[in-house]
């Protein structure tokens, strides 16, 4: 498959992967929770744990997008199912993390 065709199918998931990895690394390295939470939310209870948990979840979603990108070439249904499941899991875990370490 030519690179153009590859990007047409997997370009969006790969782009999303890159964006998520960027934010995950930024959170982990700079510990800048406002990059994720915005400026108007109250400060977090435990910055270190928040950073650790949030970046883990972002990396989890990034990994899910990478898996989706490869699954797109095998079975689109499987790719979509995998990503919806990952998003749901991430959403629920994010909520728990916010309740535990968020403001």
């Amino acid at each position, binding site marked *: 498959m030519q690179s153009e065709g590859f990007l047409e199918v997997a370009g969006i*998931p790969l782009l*999303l992967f890159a964006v998520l990895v960027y934010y995950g690394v930024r959170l982990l390295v700079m510990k800048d929770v406002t990059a994720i939470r*915005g400026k*108007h939310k109250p400060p977090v209870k435990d910055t270190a744990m928040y950073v650790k948990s949030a970046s883990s979840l972002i990396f989890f979603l990034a990994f899910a997008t990478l898996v989706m990108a490869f699954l797109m070439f095998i079975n689109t249904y499987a790719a979509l199912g995998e990503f919806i499941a990952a998003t749901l899991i*991430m959403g629920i875990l*994010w909520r728990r993390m916010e309740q535990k370490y968020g403001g």
Partner: protein
Amino acid sequence: MAKMNRKKINDFLINNGVIIVMFVLVIYTGFTSDNFFTSNNLMNILMNISARLVIALGIAGCVITAGCDLSAGRMIGFGGCIAGTLLQKMDYSNKFFPDMEPLNPFIALLIVMVICALFGTVTGFFIAYLSVPPFIATLAMMEIVYGISMIYTKATPLGGYVKAYTDIGSGKFLGINYLIWIAVIVAAITWFIFNMTRHGKYMYAIGGNMQAAEVAGVPVKLTLILIYMKAAAMYGLAGFMLGAKSGGASVQLGYGYEMEAIAACTIGGVSVTGGRGRVSSAVIGVTVFELLKVALQYLGVDANAQYIAIGIVIFVAISLDIRKYIAKK
């Protein structure tokens, strides 16, 4: 006094610098190109603006609450594809649903908007109830909608639309294209929602300070869901409009439009830090942005170089917006 006036002028020039520079560029293009200031070109520009304005008005609501919606482009493609599959001619050889009679375009539009709104509701739920940051929730939704579009259309481009549908893209009322009328009506409705309803006031309150809004009794979660739902319905409408205009659609329809819309909102004065922005901001932003693109084409700027120019404009506009925010603080 003179010092204050000079400061005011300086602030005005800095805050509206992008618009002024683009305005000058447009005037220059108009005087150096033969066909720029013609009614045909004006109508073309207005038609291009119409769908983009609908998208920008949807995104403006999200941006005012200090959020964003990166799923817009994919939602437009999805909306365009749904409309396309429901409005193909019976005798079209590649008809998506061979045995189904084409629907009335207005019913198809309603279906498109409702389906897109459902996806917007899910995005809003993730943001409001699960506290997922808007950019992550909307990126995830962008991916999900993309996957659904691929499955739904089997990645096949659509065409062969019924005349009643393509007429929406080419027909006129009082000499003005239907698409422009649709954009005007949507802008008027959005103005009413932003300025005359409680929902609009809640929206600005959330963007200004979410915590304070919550304490003041604003139903933050419900308002956020409604904003993302309304925005998604608008993307569906934009997809429908673009499909009618081009006479075809594919999952790639609307690709990158979300970035253009966010940029247009910022240029016009919708603050990415939340709490500020009007319908007129979106109108100005989209118009200026579209004029810039057309002016660059008329000036014979290389297609790839146009991306660089547009990127620089976005960069400068957002930098100036952040400057305004810092100065206000």
